[in-house]
């Protein structure tokens, strides 16, 4: 596999997305709310009694939203990247070029993965900066950076993004409509959302150890999804069976 070829495919998709701003906007609204909106809730809490005990617990749950965001961000891009090609019927000429299935698949994955990774990193940076700014006087120390946010942003987030990209490739292979694919693709959030809700209800503690166990589970799921995607993304399958 030649990475340069995969990068050509990804670059073309970046160019397309830059001309279809609605795809980018629809992808980043969640990240904007989490990274800018939530610190203001924390700021409001700093004036309340027992804020010193409550803030770390709430922040631990809020941080996990960056895993959900990392999974949500590629949905719009990945579904458009493949269904857009299907709708415009551009897959046949693309597959007729001296480019392998793997190069096209990796290119499409990069196009969905990198913006998600970048947006999540920027979002986390804004979130942690604002939180530290708002809580320093109350907590008397900087809450961030800590190991939990590092694991979330640099391990769980990318793994969740990869899972989302793979899942959306599978969805796109069976869908003809960008909107329905995005709706189905967003279902990837459900198990992650469940983790968040359980943590809010103190059923599950998002400790550093638990986050690492979560990362190991995501690695295993990512490997399974990778093999499923590889089996689905075959040129004959694409031309004769993709609906």
């Amino acid at each position, binding site marked *: 596999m030649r990475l340069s070829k995969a990068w*050509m495919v990804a670059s073309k998709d970046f160019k397309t997305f830059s*001309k279809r701003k609605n795809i980018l906007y629809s992808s980043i609204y969640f990240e904007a709310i989490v990274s800018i909106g939530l610190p203001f809730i924390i700021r409001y809490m700093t004036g309340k009694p027992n804020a010193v005990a409550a803030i770390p617990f709430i922040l631990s749950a809020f941080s996990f939203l960056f895993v959900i965001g990392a999974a949500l961000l590629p949905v719009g891009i990945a579904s458009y990247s493949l269904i857009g090609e299907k709708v415009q019927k*551009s897959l046949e*000429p693309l597959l*007729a*070029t*001296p480019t392998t299935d793997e190069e096209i698949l990796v290119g499409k994955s990069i196009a969905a993965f990198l913006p998600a990774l970048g947006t999540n990193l920027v979002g986390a940076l804004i979130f942690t900066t604002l939180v530290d700014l708002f809580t320093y006087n109350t907590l008397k120390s900087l809450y961030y950076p800590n190991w939990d946010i590092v694991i979330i942003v640099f391990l769980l987030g990318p793994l969740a993004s990869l899972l989302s990209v793979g899942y959306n490739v599978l969805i796109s292979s069976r869908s003809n409509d960008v909107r329905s694919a995005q709706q189905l693709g967003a279902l990837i959030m459900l198990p992650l959302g469940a983790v968040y809700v359980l943590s809010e209800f103190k059923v599950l503690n998002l400790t550093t150890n638990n986050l690492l166990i979560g990362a190991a589970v995501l690695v295993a799921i990512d490997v399974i999804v990778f093999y499923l995607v590889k089996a689905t993304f075959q*040129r004959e399958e694409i031309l004769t069976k993709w609906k």
Partner: protein
Amino acid sequence: MNMLEVRNLTKKFGEITAVDALTFSVAEGEVFGLLGPNGAGKTTTIRMLCCLISKTSGEAQVAGYHIGNKTDSLAIRKLIGLVPDNIGLYEELSAYENLDYYGKLYECPERERREKIEYFLKMMELWEKKDQPVSDYSKGMKQKVAIVRALIHDPKLLFFDEPTANLDPESSRVVRDFILRLKKEGKTIFINTHNLGEAQRICDRIGILKTKLLAVNTPEQLEKSVWGSRTEVQVEKVSNRILAAVRKLKPQDLSVEENRIILTVADPQKQNPDFVQAIVSAGGRIQYVTQLTPGLEETYLKVIEETK
């Protein structure tokens, strides 16, 4: 040298045979047309030859490379250009961006890519609109860009799948003229088409496909082999005496439609004067003598009809 060599090429989708034991060859510089009704297997054939789908059995070589072999498949895709039945351009991107992307995928060096895009877009009279999104283009303009896309890497063999389908007559003519220009330049071209007039005008040889290859020949020879040489003699009034005189000369076939006697003869140049003389001697007054040329459409329909 043959650019395409196909032997017993077969494709099955489950129990359904889409293409059955296709055997033909296409010489370098030849324009070969594949005619057939919808579902005859034309697109499946092109897709197999372009290494887009696998063969079930049989053999095919493109410029000496074997389809079905993974290493050869990449080499084949470098040598060929495909204009599929769906235009398949990226609507948000401009013509230049579309072509530049494909130029990169076909591994054309940057300078060569730039020069070729400029050359072809100027030739197609699209240079002034090169930076406009393709979504603003008419269908004919998009088809021109799709053709340039297939030419950007200077392929040895070009595949056109229904190149003028859904185009208005003016755009069809532009596309047809461009294919004729490529033919003059010595490109080897393989065309799937429904348009029999187009096939007759462009193709050196024609194959009629309906899952199996029913006939392959030049348009003229195909007509001759299907219909034979037919002569129509229009007389003032057909009489039994005239018909008896004609029958004595033993034509291959004889039919009468009103005042026209239609004869199928083995060697028209040699036999027609004898028939004319016999009709005149039998008291017939000849109005016209015409060589019947049924045309590719009638020939095609007859070949397809015979399979039913």
